[in-house]
């Protein structure tokens, strides 16, 4: 992939390699994730309340990035409009709770439904569009929704947004601080697990198939258009959940939750972490969020530092941190085991 002219970098789906693995190596990642989740339960105990807050945001942005990747990394469609879904989830909380006194369960259901619906609309609108045009079309759609949110002040409060959203509906134990962190962790783990299962399901695999070769999938009797729409709907629904978590955390929602910068940020999370790997985008979200908080503590020029990180990412980590790590690992393995010929690692 290092040749500058190659248009498609590593196109091998990470998931597709799984059947070739031996049993212990297949279970190792799963066990690792379990251990990681168990450790994450102790974050509030190990750090102060501020870091717990930051960790909460990392988790929900991680979910956003993972949901985004269902379209981006696995669906092969570069969206620049995911702020729309995130914002829809946020406004589901803001409008639902302040107007109709919705319970968190109702909010969640509404956000899932609205996110899925918006995702399906995006997917349908993008049926004929590929590559850069898809990027710009999703941007235009999200900006149109932003325009709606900005001017329908009756509903959204416009740029000032909806302040003081009550959290009374949540059980007292998880309403704020450490409790809310644990609630977020549970919801995020659940959603990520569902996304994992979706990605491994025949449905998710066939979406990957359309990414690889639309014509073959269509010849095999699949309907790529429908598959793409489904991918967008799934992605939209879980992105909206991330928005719900964010707004319950902040207690307010405004048009800033729908600004195109969020769409750009999440794209960078995915690329930086490694879009070909299920956990790559999550890792990217955690890394960038942490970096922002850390650097801005020391200098006002944190935007410049962020810019440098973006440039370095594009030049050296086009496959993401995980992609880089995986290729280094492969390199090390081929060197050490050059004689034994590990054919399972060969690319097809």
């Amino acid at each position: 992939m290092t040749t500058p002219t190659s248009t498609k970098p590593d196109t091998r789906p990470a998931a597709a390699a799984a059947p070739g693995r031996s049993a212990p190596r297949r279970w190792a990642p799963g066990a690792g994730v379990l251990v990681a989740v168990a450790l994450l339960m102790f974050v509030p105990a190990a750090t102060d309340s501020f870091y717990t807050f930051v960790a909460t945001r990392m988790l929900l942005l991680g979910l956003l990035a993972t949901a985004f990747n269902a379209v981006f990394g696995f669906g092969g469609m570069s969206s620049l409009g995911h702020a729309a879904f995130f914002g829809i989830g946020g406004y589901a909380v803001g409008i639902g709770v302040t107007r109709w006194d919705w319970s968190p369960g109702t909010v969640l259901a509404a956000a899932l439904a609205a996110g899925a619906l918006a995702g399906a609309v995006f997917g349908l609108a993008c049926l004929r569009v590929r590559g850069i045009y898809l990027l710009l079309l999703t941007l235009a759609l999200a900006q149109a929704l932003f325009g709606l949110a900005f001017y329908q002040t009756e509903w959204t409060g416009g740029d000032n947004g909806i302040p003081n959203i009550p959290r009374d509906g949540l059980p007292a134990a998880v309403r704020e601080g450490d409790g809310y962190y644990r609630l977020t962790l549970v919801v995020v783990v659940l959603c990520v697990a569902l996304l994992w299962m979706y990605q491994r399901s025949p449905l998710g695999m066939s979406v990957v198939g359309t990414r690889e070769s639309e014509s073959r999938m269509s010849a095999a009797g699949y309907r790529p258009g429908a598959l793409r729409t489904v991918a967008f709907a799934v992605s939209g629904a879980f992105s909206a959940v991330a928005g719900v978590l964010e707004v319950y955390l902040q207690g307010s929602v405004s048009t800033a939750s729908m600004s195109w910068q969020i769409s750009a940020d999440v794209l960078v999370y995915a690329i930086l972490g490694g879009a070909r790997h299920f956990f790559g985008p999550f890792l990217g979200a955690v890394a960038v969020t942490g970096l922002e908080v850390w650097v801005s503590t020391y200098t006002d020029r944190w935007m410049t530092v962020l810019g440098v990180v973006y440039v370095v990412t594009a030049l050296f980590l086009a496959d993401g941190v995980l992609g880089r790590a995986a290729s280094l690992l492969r390199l090390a393995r081929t060197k050490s085991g050059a004689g034994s010929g590990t054919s399972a690692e060969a690319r097809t």
Partner: protein
Amino acid sequence: MLTWLTHTVNGLAYGSLLFLVASGLTITFGLLRTVNLAHGAFYLLGGYLAYDLASDGTDYWIALALAVLAAAAMGTVVQRAFLHYVAGRELPQIVLTLGIAYIIGDQILANYGGDPVAPQTPPGLEGPVTIGDWTFPKFRLVMIGVAIAVAVFAGALLRFTPTGAKVRAAVDDEEIARAVGIRVPLIFLLVFGFGTGLAAFAGVWGGAFTSLSPDSGFDMLLLALIVVVVGGLGSIGGALLAAFAVGLIDQYGKVWFPEWALFTLYASVAALLAVRPRGLFGKAVTR
């Protein structure tokens, strides 16, 4: 009656500004397949440099020329040092140019502060011109002419000059172009420098039109993207027509239903793209 004439001509003038920004973007995209989100940053860079030089007492036209050349030079550096290595890969290009846009915007904020600045109106073009009962700003009227001139000039450059022929050859089939001795990397470098130079020129003139602040780069970028996409990526004529169309729609939209202006603009662009994915005049990409 005269009011409508004013609205129409002003729509065209605003469209001309959009075209000046979009022209560089459509050239770098259409010819290099480079998605340059730093385009707005080069717009800012040109405007601020010219403003800086002119306020130090440099002659306006010299300041303009220096700002455009400096931005073009910086554009070629960015192309050679960074974009060159991610040629043909859209996603890294987006991340890279976004990063460069952040850096340039933040450095402008650090060096010039956040208060808005306005490069001066070109000498001789200040104030309104009056024809009968009709009054219109001279500068805006000239802007329409300049936009058309830039479109003709850039179009002719590509179509009728040997360099233009080389550029087209390099774009159509890079390998063959290399084989027949065209120095493709050099060509790409020139084209990118030309594109960023155009952005800087738009910044100097557009800055006089709308003033500049470290954040206005992204505002202009989004509008320019719309124009480029509607016109069809890579089509200069398409961009000009699209810019005029967007300018007029924007103008009349603001007069008729101002509260829906933001929504209607983006929604109609989205609808157009969903139906005509290549925009109005875009060629099918043979890749």
